[in-house]
């Protein structure tokens, strides 16, 4: 009806290909971080010091891909001057990339905490609480990556509710650390608390990813609070 030409079609297809490449790249980035988060959690729970170097090294690939995707997003923003859903997607994806990259750093922080606690054997109650937290946090992060892969606008509100469980498990973990603090000693108790905080933050990033997807698809945030405006205490 409005006189499209083959050239126009081609340019539009190129644009859509670029958007799809960015989205698929972000899903890949998310899966790399998910893998490293699981590996770090597993290393903590099973005291696998031998895994630390590999976890730290794996983050290089995350950072490299992050920079590549961010550059591509900016380039598409500049050259295509997107509007409406395309604009929401590109703005949201730059935030999502950041959320994923930060989560990757937090997985590395977990591994480094393990290194600092070298040789310490944790009481089973502490390990049990840690294992539950690791599992819940990784599961929420997987949900965030799925939301991105499926562009699932319903995930934002759902993951926000599921995050309450992670907060509860984190609180329970802190309680265990407190109860065993004399056996653990102060430096280990502090490191474990930090690990709890890292895992809790990874889950928060997952919620933010899913909420950004809700925004891309619907144009509205899942709840009226703009998550970008919530304070970030990392």
């Amino acid at each position, binding site marked *: *009806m*409005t*006189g*499209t030409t083959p050239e*126009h*079609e081609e340019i*539009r297809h190129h*644009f859509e290909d670029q958007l799809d490449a960015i989205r698929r790249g972000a899903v890949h980035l998310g899966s790399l971080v998910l893998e490293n988060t699981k590996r770090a959690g597993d290393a903590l729970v099973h005291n696998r010091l031998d895994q630390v170097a590999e976890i730290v090294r794996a983050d290089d690939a995350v950072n490299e891909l992050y920079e590549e995707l961010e550059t591509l997003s900016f380039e598409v923003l500049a050259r295509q*001057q*997107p*509007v*409406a*859903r*395309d*604009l*929401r997607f590109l703005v949201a994806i730059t935030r999502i990339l950041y959320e994923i990259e930060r989560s990757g750093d937090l997985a590395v922080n977990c591994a480094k905490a393990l290194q600092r606690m070298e040789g310490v054997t944790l009481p089973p109650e502490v390990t049990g609480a840690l294992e539950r937290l690791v599992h819940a946090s990784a599961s929420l992060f997987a949900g965030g990556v799925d939301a991105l892969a499926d562009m699932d606008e319903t995930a934002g509100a759902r993951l926000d509710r599921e995050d309450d469980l992670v907060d509860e498990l984190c609180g329970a973990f802190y309680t265990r650390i407190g109860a065993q603090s004399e056996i653990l000693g102060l430096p280990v108790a502090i490191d474990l608390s930090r690990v709890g905080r890292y895992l809790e933050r990874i889950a928060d990033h997952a919620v933010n990813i899913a909420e950004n997807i809700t925004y891309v698809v619907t*144009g509205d945030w899942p709840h009226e609070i703009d998550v970008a405006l919530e304070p970030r205490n990392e």
Partner: protein
Amino acid sequence: MTEHTDTDIDSSPPTAVHGATPNGEELADDVAKVLETRDMDVFYGDFRAVADVSIGFRFNEISALIGPSGCGKSTVLRSLNRMNDLIPSARVTGEVHYHGANIYAEGVDPVEVRRRIGMVFQKPNPFPKSIFDNVAWGVKINGFKGSKAELADHVEATLRQAALWDEVKDKLSDSGLSLSGGQQQRLCIARAIATQPDVVLMDEPCSALDPIATLRIEELMLELKKDYSIVIVTHNMQQAARVSDRTAFFNVQLDEKGQRTGRMIEFTPTDVLFTNPEQQETEDYITGRFG
């Protein structure tokens, strides 16, 4: 400036002139409109070019009309100051209210309508006269009664308002055609506002200009909206996004007889239209996914 007794157009707010409107339910909100179409159709002979346009333009806002070629946006614009009267086969049905009065009502003088609702065209079209006379002309034919000095003052004030004074003050007797394209277009804007309208219609005013001249016109528009209400037709969506307060999207639709007719799809605040439009049709057009 001039006394007109041959018209019933009044420049006081609409409520003071017209109480209830025949189609009061058409008013989507209570904010006063400087110009408002109600169920407007525009025909060229038997061909209905535009159908069912009800759109209200607010005071001191820039409203942009966008859409593909043939969607009727320029036709709508020309109907807002009876410029379509100049095309023999053109016919407008429905109503166009200016300060609450229908400009298509019997007894309304179209020349007076065009004095109050000025127009700037796609191609800069200064008269082949001096820069001074380009601005003074409209004032003089509207029966300016002041002295030569007063006329000169008015021309200066108008050229200042059109952001052109500093560039032309030393060559007011040069031909308007000696100016650059961007300057010519600002001269045309000066000519349009010289008769002190309160609405200025602009039909793709920057499409013949380079980006720098375009930017100056856009800056001028933002300055002018303090005193005028502006309606602009543009093919440049970024321009609509940059300068307008509200944007109307028009599209071509097949009507019941299989004719291609322009219709208004949505009219919303510009920030909403370009980030989260209500209609899928709008989204498809502005994101380039049409056809």
